[in-house]
């Protein structure tokens, strides 16, 4: 069932405000009842959470509240404004807003940038265009309907008259502001000229010439550089450290112990070393001797043993539909298999860093590559006792987020060090700091059992999920919704959960949960279809043809994405060469429907992923290049991450750099072909949805090519190399 969602614009109760700036520019602002008080709205004193400014030279500036981490929002947003305002998109630029409460949510996460910005951007662009058109019509004394706008000008076709927007700003500012409900918003792919085309990123010129766009590129007069040594065992405290000795080393200006807290998401205990250059701080660190006090000794070996023991227990029932035991008794066939994936790190190419300056006035200023600067500010305020309104956060370009920078440890460390030193300080973590002090995607074990009836249909599904938690509650990134498919697609369904206690920091990792467990589900579906003697595509299309109770996902859109990926890959239509195999998988998360088909060639246990065909339905595509980039990158990320594993010993991460945790290289990367279904649904984001189904599509292709079923990640645990 597909649902159109245009009416959302009305539901959100948007308000427009149009004003003239001293520069002569026209400013269009948008606010929402959700962010504003009734008194502010009544008095007209409300502050907009998005601005579009039409300048006297005809250029257009939008203030973007969302940081850019490579998800392409800084290019997609001005494209939407340009489309609705009818100006050349190259005349629309983005001003990066600092953290400011009036902008509402300022987060890179949840694939929400596009859906959150979609209405505001269209409203602002359309309102400005309608006002400028009305201004021209009034000047000419002709009906508005005769005055289309194009390329930054209003035209009157009959008379051949035209007026550039910049000549109409003052007149437009004096006209009544249209109600949002009166705006004719473009919403369907058929309406678009610019949207859906291939547009290179607006920051590309700066990137290809090496301009200092990133957090670590921040340079301030008199700035010092810092490193921060923490205990390898998570949460370890400093008993003593030779800071007096370190302070006398070349270039070092400060060395001190930070007591910190025992909350792993906040300021951890450690030793700060500050120097004139980062290299001198890091060199001094090699002379640092710290005696740590540690409290626990989590290890991968101990987790494995506990998981083994728990697998023999029943676990807590999170959901039970029908009667699985009875269904197994009457099933024609029963299939059982267990899947395991390890902890993995985020491994942003730009290791965590933050620059901070504590002014004598008591004001703190930061330059942070943060996915959630508001959360960082709150933590700093709490930890340092500085009121939030005295903390100013500048948002820099982010050298990779993937969820890691939703945590604020690096921000609070920089703030603390800056306050102690009273100097501008840039804290730069090493790669080793970054990999050993991550908030890891948690490991899990999935024990599956499925019953198949005479017709080859899956009639029962029992799932024992063994995950991680603290005090019996799953930790961040370790939960599984009881409503997740195949719940609702199988008449008899049971989900059981057991929890292993952990002291390891965990957190959101690109498409949290989905990017891990989709692989287990879709691998097991492959096994069930294989046991039933059914074609993999036909089995899944059949699974998606019927729900029991509320469907766990939109069956039509999921099937549509799967079908187009399979069609483009020639599923069932072409003869594969020897040692080649095709595999497929579907998924839905964060509003996006993405399926993949992978083709693998095997040479013994060594495989190469040749190509991946992706079927994607995220509603209308805004920037075809940016959207394809997210899909292509996610496929590579999936294959790369399937080779990675973080293990623990003595309460610490074992791996520390690319030497023992290699990322995929270009010679291992597949070709990727994206096929978008340009539906009329409201657009959803694409940072997360393409990754989940990529891993199982590849692994299912490995099975088709080699006969080896990958039930344990990384691939090396299943005897497969890439």
């Amino acid at each position, binding site marked *: 069932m597909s649902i159109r969602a245009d009416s959302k614009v009305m539901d959100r109760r948007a308000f427009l405000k149009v004003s003239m700036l001293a520069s002569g520019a026209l400013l269009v602002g948008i606010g929402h009842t959700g962010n504003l008080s009734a008194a502010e709205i009544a008095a007209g004193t409300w502050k907009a959470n998005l601005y579009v400014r039409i300048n006297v030279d005809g250029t257009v500036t939008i203030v973007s509240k969302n940081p850019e981490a490579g998800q392409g929002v800084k290019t997609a947003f001005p494209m939407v404004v340009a489309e609705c305002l009818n100006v050349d998109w190259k005349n629309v630029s983005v001003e990066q807003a600092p953290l400011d409460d009036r902008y509402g949510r300022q987060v890179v996460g949840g694939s929400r940038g596009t859906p959150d910005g979609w209405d505001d951007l269209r409203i602002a662009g359309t309102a400005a265009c309608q006002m400028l058109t009305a201004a021209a019509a009034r000047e000419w004394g002709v009906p508005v309907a005769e005055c289309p706008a194009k390329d930054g000008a209003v035209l009157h076709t009959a008379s051949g008259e035209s007026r550039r927007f910049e000549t109409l700003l003052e007149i437009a500012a004096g006209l009544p502001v249209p109600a949002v409900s009166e705006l004719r918003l473009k919403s369907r792919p058929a309406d678009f000229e610019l949207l859906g085309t291939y547009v290179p990123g607006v920051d590309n010129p700066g*990137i290809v010439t090496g301009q200092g766009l990133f957090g*670590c590129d921040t340079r301030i007069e008199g700035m010092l550089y810092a490193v921060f040594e923490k205990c390898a065992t998570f949460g370890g405290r400093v008993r003593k450290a030779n800071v007096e000795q370190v302070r006398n080393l070349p270039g070092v200006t400060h060395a001190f112990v930070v007591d910190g807290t025992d909350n792993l998401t906040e300021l951890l205990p450690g030793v700060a070393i500050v120097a004139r250059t980062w290299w001198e701080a890091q060199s001094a660190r090699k002379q640092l001797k710290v005696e740590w006090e540690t409290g626990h000794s989590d290890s991968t070996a101990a987790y494995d043993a506990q998981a083994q023991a728990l697998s023999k227990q029943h676990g807590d029932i999170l959901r039970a539909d029908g009667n699985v035991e009875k269904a197994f008794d009457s099933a024609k066939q029963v299939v059982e298999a267990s899947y395991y994936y390890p902890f993995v790190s985020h491994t942003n190419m730009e290791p965590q860093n933050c620059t901070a300056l504590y002014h004598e006035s008591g004001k703190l200023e930061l330059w942070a590559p943060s996915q959630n600067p508001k959360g960082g500010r709150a933590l700093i305020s709490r930890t340092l006792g500085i009121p939030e309104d005295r903390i100013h956060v500048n948002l820099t370009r982010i050298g990779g987020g993937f969820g890691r920078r939703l945590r604020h440890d690096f921000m609070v460390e920089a703030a603390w060090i800056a306050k102690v030193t009273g100097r501008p300080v840039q804290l730069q973590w090493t*790669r080793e700091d970054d990999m050993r002090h991550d908030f890891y995607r948690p490991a899990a074990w999935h024990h599956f059992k499925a019953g198949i009836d005479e017709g080859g249909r899956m009639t029962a599904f029992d799932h024992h999920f063994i995950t991680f938690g603290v005090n019996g509650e799953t930790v961040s990134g370790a939960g599984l919704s009881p409503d997740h498919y195949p719940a609702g697609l199988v008449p008899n369904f049971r989900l059981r959960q057991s929890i292993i206690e952990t002291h390891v920091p965990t957190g959101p990792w690109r498409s949290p949960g989905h990017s891990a467990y989709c692989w287990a589900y879709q691998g097991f579906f492959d096994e069930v279809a294989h046991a039933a003697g059914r074609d993999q595509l036909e089995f899944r299309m059949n699974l998606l043809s019927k729900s029991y109770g509320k469907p766990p996902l939109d069956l039509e859109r999921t099937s549509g994405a799967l079908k187009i990926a399979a069609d483009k890959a020639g599923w069932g239509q072409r003869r594969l060469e020897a040692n080649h195999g095709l595999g497929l998988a579907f998924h839905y998360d964060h509003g996006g429907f993405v399926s993949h088909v992978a083709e693998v060639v095997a040479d013994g246990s060594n495989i190469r992923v040749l190509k991946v065909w992706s079927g994607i339905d995220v509603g209308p595509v805004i920037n075809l290049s940016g959207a394809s980039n997210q899909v292509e990158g996610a496929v*590579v990320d999936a294959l790369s991450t399937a080779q990675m594993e973080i293990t623990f010993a003595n309460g610490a991460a074992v791996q520390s*750099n690319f030497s023992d945790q290699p990322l995929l290289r*270009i010679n291992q990367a597949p070709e990727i072909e994206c096929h978008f279904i340009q539906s009329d649904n409201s657009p959803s984001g694409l940072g997360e949805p393409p990754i989940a189904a990529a891993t199982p599509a590849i692994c299912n292709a490995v099975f088709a090519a080699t006969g080896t079923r990958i039930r344990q990640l990384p691939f090396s645990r299943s005897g497969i190399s890439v």
Partner: protein
Amino acid sequence: MSKVTLKINGETHELDVPQDMPLLWALRDKLDLVGTKYSCGIGVCGTCTVLVNGTPMRSCVMPAVTMASMDITTIEGLDPAGNHPVQKAWNEVDVPQCGYCQGGQILTASALLERNSNPTDEDIDAAMSGVLCRCGTYHRIRKAIKLAAKNTAGTGGAA
């Protein structure tokens, strides 16, 4: 501290640096040339790549004091206007996602095209496999290198 004279992007710089300071940190912290990025610090990821006498080298593991008399090109110096064929192709194909590793990718690609004006996929994989990209832009790196090669064909080289 040791004195060293470095020739970077055609300009001469007199520097006073610790004996073991890698070129990367001399560039970033002494000269504020921040286009060259830190990522692994052990010479395995290629993010910090610079050209030394035209050859891609890892600036994070080469002491600055050993680089006197060498011709060093950083991403800022390839073509500050961004008109090098590789830079133009990178923009047109829209290779970057986060962009952090791209300076190293672009310099490595420009060195490849200097010695091989028409590289095959295998040539590209061999030349580029030392530079990691976490965003997974490899597919477009191949495309962009081929586009740069095509756009320079008949003009006597990539730069």
